[in-house]
């Protein structure tokens, strides 16, 4: 079936990586998609390495559809250890590449929700 519900998406939905609140974090943010009731939050711990701020630890929490949860799971995996400036540049094409599926405009909003949260944390960190 030509579907967005590939094995990797379902896997990340059922077994999300980096899920659950961190005991201690440097910054946290949450976003809500009123269209479908998806709510994603992220806790982040930074570290300084070679003069650059990088993500030391990142977890996400919340509840949502398979797309938003899988996207959050894959995104947190992807950005661990990355530096701030690279993360700031992440956009829609990167999310689509990470997910590896085509999405309608409606479902794209679900996939982008975790990225919105991530960008929100970066803004707060400043």
């Amino acid at each position, binding site marked *: 079936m030509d579907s967005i*519900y590939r094995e990797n998406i379902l896997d990340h939905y059922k077994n999300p990586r980096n899920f659950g609140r961190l005991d201690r974090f440097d910054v946290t943010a949450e976003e809500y998609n009123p269209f479908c009731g998806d709510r994603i939050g992220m806790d982040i711990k930074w570290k300084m390495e070679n003069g650059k701020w990088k993500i030391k630890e990142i977890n996400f929490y919340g509840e949502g559809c398979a797309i938003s949860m899988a996207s959050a799971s894959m995104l947190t995996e992807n950005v661990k250890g990355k530096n701030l400036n690279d993360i700031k540049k992440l956009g829609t094409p990167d999310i689509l590449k990470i997910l590896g599926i085509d999405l309608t405009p409606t479902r794209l909003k679900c996939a982008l929700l975790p990225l919105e949260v991530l960008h929100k944390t970066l803004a707060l960190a400043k």
Partner: protein
Amino acid sequence: MFDPVQIKKDFPIFKRLINGKPIVYLDSTASSLKPQKVLDAINEYYTKYSVNIFRGVYKLSEEATAKYEQARAKIAKFIGASNPAEVVFTRSATEAINLVVYSWGRENIGRGSEIVSTLMEHHANFVPWQQLALSVGAFIKYIDFDENGQLDTSQLLKTISSKTKIVTLAFVSNVLGTINPIGDIIRQIKRKNPKVKILIDAAAAVPHMKLDVNKLGCDFLAFSGHKMLGPTGIGALWGKSGLLENMPPFNYGGEMIKQVSIEKTTFKVAPHKFEAGTPHIAGAIGLGAAVEYLDNLGMDKVRRHEIELTKYALSRLSNLSNLKIYGPKSADDRSGIISFNLDNVHSHDVAQVLDSDNICIRSGHHCAMPLHKRLNIAASARASFYIYNSKEDVDKLVGGLMKVAKIFKI
């Protein structure tokens, strides 16, 4: 007898195949499909007499005016109104309710006034009252419902006080499918406080069951054309004549005036007082054609068909484990609306999988966030039936849900 397969033939959209598969449309509560007769009526206006109404002396204008007012009369008769002047054309049920809030509400509701509503309201009948209350310092009391989706009518009556100005509630819940016993409720309210006005949001009722505004005893009733086989952009507010006469205009402009001078303007009487500017003439005519189509089917038959279909759907769905259905357990207490959730699968994903087989259901909060908060769920999936749906459509829905369960391994 009522044959949805034959009825489907009246709706040209069903000729369409998407990815080689037919459309299984289960979202009529969001918007209904259109029969050729309605499309023909709209097209006829634009082809044969697409001129403005009321203004022209020429024959075409007289023709358009006559057809527009005939549509009003048809719609008035459909809801049991004694006088077509009690029917104001609006853009939708939403605009109809806003009209009452702006026109009647701002004159009659002030600081300390009370409005009684419910937790099951659609945003169209929730937000306008909320905003009015916030701006004038009035209070809204929200009545709760039980696990069967039934309104707590005794709580509602207890809540009516001398400060209550208006009770505003849905006839049919667009999520729970609950049919509120409006006639009964109104009688009891008026007995307790005869001054209280009552507005009924009938958007999910008028398309599906026969109703009579005089028998119900309400003061205002709002509904939308596009949910009852009519075009988008047209709806109606029914208001008791005495009330409409004393209400100030909602929008100002052309057509609703008697005389305009530099110093002042005098206004027409209802309904034209509330219809400023050039209306959606084709929309009104299309809605008139929709009413005719429904009349020919017979609203009793429409309701019976939905009860049968809903009974069948509830029974088939009850065989699916991990499925929670919201609202009344019995098909007799509900309209053809079934909102549900599959354990551990978000309603969005349910709708997406069903979409791969062209099964159209709605997912989200269905313009009823307070209701979802009350149910303690983020979102729900909703299937709704209308005259063109058959048992086969229900079977396809069930098949689709089993597919979802398989994919998500629940």
